[in-house]
């Protein structure tokens, strides 16, 4: 499967490599760099690159490239998923995944890679097991380790590896037993220039932080589970219970994890919580630019962190705008205009208007910028999904439970 892994930073330096089979020369990455140069942006590198003898499958995350070398037929998604899992694990261990944190913890990184793959085939990928095998570094431990000469490596086999609940370790104990669930819904929408919704759907996810002692068995039920069109689960969730009763029944992993993500179909109507009116015109060496934004169907909640960004055409030299609320920022190099509106209060909807100055001597741009919108609404699930109750079985204590709803803009675009 995965033969070797190279980590490449944004300056195209290979700063770490790991081989699970016979070492492969660094020069294999030249093919990757070649593809990188061809691509207009780092995002645009094709995930699979063919070289005369090997195949390179790469991912781009946290401004780093993880390039794996494959020699034989394998499902590319397998490798891609796995590379992402490696990055997730790094983030889990070091709180971030940057060149710096990887270099600082290179021994742990190496040990992790060693445990996660054997002969290129995944061995232990559950973070709970890995954490038992290799303790995550923290300041206290590194001090203790230097003083006592102890190591980060656990001496015994993690129990989870052997059990059929590989995601949870045994003997978890907490003084305060608590379980929090964050229901985050993202509205993906495309709104066309006339303001009608071309496409809208809701992508939700339930992220949980469960700190419960022992082996609790949780049941999470919803008031209106039929809303959920398509659901994907953490491996701990019992498929059958969901299918038959629409209840999420699971033995949770310890700590934070993504319990499930769901999709509320495009068939059902999605109420878009804001409206945007725009008026962008180019003429001669200048142009008019005006955007109005206001709340709609927010169910009494306040829209926060509203931000509208537009990628202006490259002929735009500068903009001179006046917002009635918030402030704006234009990056003349990237041609990126960002209007940070903030909270929308009831009353007058915020407006930004002004002039755009265009480069003279070149034709007036044809395309209008697409507006990307970001916002946040606390305590609202736009789909109307509500948790009914959370029950715990298998343990006797009373856990503290909490559910939080939040609605955000996902890939929310307004075509102008």
């Amino acid at each position, binding site marked *: 499967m995965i033969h070797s892994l190279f980590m490449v930073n944004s300056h195209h330096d290979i700063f770490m490599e790991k081989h699970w089979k016979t070492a492969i020369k660094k020069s294999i990455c030249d093919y990757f760099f070649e593809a990188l140069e061809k691509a207009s942006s780092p995002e645009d590198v094709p995930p699979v690159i063919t070289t005369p003898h090997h195949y390179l499958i790469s991912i781009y995350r946290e401004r780093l490239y993880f390039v794996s070398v494959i020699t034989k037929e394998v499902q590319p998604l397998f490798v*891609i998923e*796995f590379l992402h899992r490696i990055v997730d694990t790094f983030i889990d261990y070091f709180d971030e995944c940057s060149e710096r944190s990887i*270099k600082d913890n290179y021994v742990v990184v190496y*040990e992790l890679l060693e445990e996660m793959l054997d002969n290129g085939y995944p061995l232990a*990928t559950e973070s709970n097991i890995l954490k038992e095998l290799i303790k995550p570094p923290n300041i206290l431990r590194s001090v203790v380790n230097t003083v006592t000469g102890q190591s980060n490596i656990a001496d015994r086999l993690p129990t989870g590896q052997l059990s059929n609940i590989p995601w949870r370790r045994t003997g978890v104990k907490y003084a305060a037993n608590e379980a929090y669930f964050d229901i985050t819904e993202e509205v993906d929408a495309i709104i066309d220039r006339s303001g009608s919704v071309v496409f809208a759907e809701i992508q939700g996810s339930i992220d949980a932080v469960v700190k419960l002692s022992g082996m609790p068995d949780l049941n999470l039920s919803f008031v209106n589970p039929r809303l959920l069109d398509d659901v994907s689960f953490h491996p701990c969730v019992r498929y059958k219970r969901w299918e038959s009763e629409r209840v999420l029944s699971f033995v949770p992993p310890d700590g934070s994890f993504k319990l499930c993500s769901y999709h509320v179909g495009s068939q059902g109507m999605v109420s878009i919580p804001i409206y945007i009116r725009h008026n962008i015109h180019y003429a001669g060496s200048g142009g008019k630019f005006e955007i109005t934004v206001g709340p709609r169907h927010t169910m009494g909640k306040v829209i926060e962190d509203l931000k509208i960004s537009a990628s202006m055409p490259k002929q735009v030299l500068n903009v001179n705008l006046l917002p009635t609320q918030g402030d704006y920022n234009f990056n003349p190099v990237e041609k990126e205009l960002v209007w940070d509106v903030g909270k929308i209060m009831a009353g007058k909807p915020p407006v930004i208007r002004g002039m755009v100055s265009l480069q003279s001597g070149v034709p007036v741009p044809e395309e209008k910028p697409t507006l990307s919108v970001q916002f946040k609404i606390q305590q609202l699930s736009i789909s109307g999904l509500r948790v009914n109750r959370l029950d715990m*079985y298998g343990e006797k204590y009373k856990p503290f439970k909490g559910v939080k709803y939040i609605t955000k803009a996902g890939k929310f675009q307004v*075509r102008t």
Partner: protein
Amino acid sequence: MTSYNDERSGGGGGDDRGQDPSSGTLFNVNYRKHDDLKQMLDQNKDALKLEAMKRIIGMIAKGRNASGLFPAVVKNVASKNIEVKKLVYVYLERYAEEQQDLALLSISTFQRGLKDPNQLIRASALRVLSSIRVPIIVPIMMLSIKDCSNDMSPFVRKTAAHAIPKLYSLDPDQKENLIEIIEKLLNDRTTLVAGSVVMAFQEVCPERIDLVHRHYRKLCSLLVDVDEWGQIAILSMLTRYARTQFLDPNKNDDGIDEKDRPFYEEDEQSSEEEEKPKKPTYIMDHDHRLLLKSSKPLLQSRNAAVVMAVSQLYYHVAPRNEVSIVAKALVRLLRGRREVQAIVLQNIASMTLKGKGVFDPFLKSFYVRSTDPTHVRILKLEVLTNLASETNIAIILREFQTYVRSADKQFVAHTIQAIARCATNITEVTDTCLAGLVSLLSNRDEAVVAESVVVIKKLLQMNPSQHSDIIKHMAKLVDNIQVPMARASILWLIGEYSEFVPKIAPDVLRKVAKTFVSQENIVKLQILSLAAKLYVTNHKQTKLLTQYILQLAKYDQNYDIRDRARFIRHLIMPSQAVATGSIHKHAKKILLAPKPAPVLESPFKGRDTFQLGSLSHAISGEAAGYQRLPDFPEEQPDPTCRNVEVPKATSGENKKSLRKPNKKKSFYSDEESSSEEESSSGSEDSESDSDDSDSDDESDEGRTSDTEGPDSRISESDSVPPPKRKTERLKRVEESESSSEDESSSSEEEESSSESEEEIPKKSKVRRKVGKQEVNLLDLDDFAPPTLTTSTNQSTGIMMPVLAADLQGISLADSASDVTSVGATPTMETFELLHRVTGGGLSAVYRYPRSPCIYDDRMVTIALEFTNNGDAIVEDIRMGEKNLQSGLRVHDFTPIDKIEPGASHNVTFGVDFCDTTQPLHFKLCTAKRNFNVSIKIPVGELVLPIVMSQDNFVKQQGKLAGMNENRGKVVVQGEAKAICSKVTEIVNVARVPSTQEHVIRFAGKTSHGGSFLLITIETSTEQRQAQLCVNCDKMVICSIIFKQIKEKLAS
């Protein structure tokens, strides 16, 4: 902790990664530095060694050569410090291959490690031993893998499975031996091992399909519980398997026209049942269905690769009308990471080429966003184009219009091609598309115009006569347009259709003739053709021009053009010398032969010949090691090969594989067994034993569950009829008899090491089986209602476990069909219904005789005793008006004529409480007065005792987990008997014969709904603690009874 860059300070800066300008001195510094590391490694202090090893690992991580340190490092392979050891292992895996002789020094350490009592050490020793790639040690590796594949720890076995492909790649000659090991490991039931061994199978011997037969059903049933990566391996293996073992489910569909499909697709989805009977010829194999069924839930995996693996399985193996279920999951993946999105779109593009209907409802999910990278946009376009049909073309075209305005020119070009493809595919919109494309000709961007010209040329070819105005329009463009491909296209068009533009064509030729020299090759070639065609049709006007062009071409630098010029010259104006004339006569026919319109093909065509989800599919070419998915066989291969026969020697193994894939259950049972493993590997408290037996029974009952499992379809597929099962049972007991001699030894082993317990279940289960027979029989003494069969057991059974098993089989079959209720010890506790003061002398008490109700089997019998304490005769006692809660039913007692003073009278009546504790209010009427009375029933009386076998009990208990289970520790006073009586006092249940002395089980069912109420009490030796577990479908009853028993036991 050493930081990655620490060496810089330690090594005097020479170690900087390539950034150091003085890297010319690298070698010197390295040598010095290595000396320093060597010294550190030679010292006795672990801290120093660790420090040195960390720095060496740092060197490896940066990809710099650290092989010079091999001798110093390898000495530490036996280090006591676990971290040093681990890092040495990492080093060895990297460099052993290069220093084979020295690496041999370490082998003995690993061999020792393989015998270590700690499974972690055994596993890591095997891992390193198999990873060092030194050919000399192949025999040692072979032996070690063999040993470890028999290891009792599943973790070690998993490692052994991982080692198989390593050895295979090192020495392919070992294949036969390795296959043997794979065969053995395939028998393994642990989910931990299953994925790894299938992966090894795929690497080493994917062609040995015959090995899979026996494990096919097991793998299907395990699928949900295997880890994500294992699932992928198993799914891809089973796809291949299914393609060789089952018939093509779509064989009879082939008559349906591909183009018509989208119309029918939706109907098919909704009326699948109606569709079925129409094609009676094909009946899907049960195992085929099983595979589809057991892989379906995995579509909800969070792992994109798993979803993809299921999707490709459905695509390649399932009937066409079922493929649609994967669409939703695949569309979900589009929300994922960029790389995932790209690969999934590629696969969707291939899927949509064949069956459009599947993704039709998700059309809008493929709309391009401004943030998508270009390759994703192009893939989305491809999908949209594939999805286009008469019904949705309008929306798609509107969407395309937006794209054409995009700033990304490459994307615009692809959009134009996509429009053209839509236009050719859907004849209704050809004209609309063409008009749209023509309007693009006035676009300011040349690339857009050029692309439009090229596609318009292709479109015009389909129907040129109607579009002469377009041709004219394009002829005008020749002056301005510079993109060679576009110019060439226009010239070709004019030449081909010069009859529609007779006046313009020669003029165009004149213009291009002037610039001939400066044109691109491709344009020159087209100029030549244009000239030739015009010469043939319009000889008068163009003769000189043509000659001029041919003359120019004759001296062109490009030999293609020279060649073409010579060919054309001889074709159209043959010189006198070679005037054969015969070809010349046909020149017009040759040049202006009607040309078939080009088919606008998807650029991704051809990709769909590869297996979906494979690397080859992604790169659209055969990757190394790609194996073409075989076609379905014409004839159904023998389906019975998957039936697992029951050879005596391995019955323990095989009865497991007979288990039906009741997924929910297996999930729970796994939890049980996990607790088993945990407890066995962890502290050895007395409970672990009981846990074990629980889960063992659990897996046992899985086998019996098929008669009434929820998947009746699957159970029908079971080719083992019930009688056979019974004989199997019989055989097993025979076996158990024979192995009972081993019993003592095995139990000794069990005590000697805690880990060995995992290996033993097979044996110990057998032992318990024997135990069960005995206990079953012995316990009968204090088990109140003996049935006929069991009493025969009592007399003869002890001596003949075989017969006993047989009989148990019978009784089990009975109890499975209907659990008979039995009488239980009646409680004498009475409750007051009517006090004599309020009743004016008449008093009434009631009690629960716990006898089955004679009026209705859903009712609870209540016995009333009236006593006349007064001094007058009470007459005509009857039940008056009843205030019934919903669903309550009462069967009145027979009215009493009269009760003499001082006398009492007993009556019974039945009440159906609907399994609730709502009180029954009614009027008690006498001749003179009415009394309002109410009866409140204790929960325990809502239950009727039933006889149940232990197996059945555990099975039912397995179904009632989660919310339907209340479990907790309780304090117990008194012995087992006392516990029994206490429980039966509260709840009307019957004791279940148990094979374990410390586990007491009671079974009952609610009188109305017939839901099972199962009570388990596991006593433990220490301090009167016990584990109480109550399972019942009715959650309220469950929790109340739990509370009541808990209180009672403590009293």
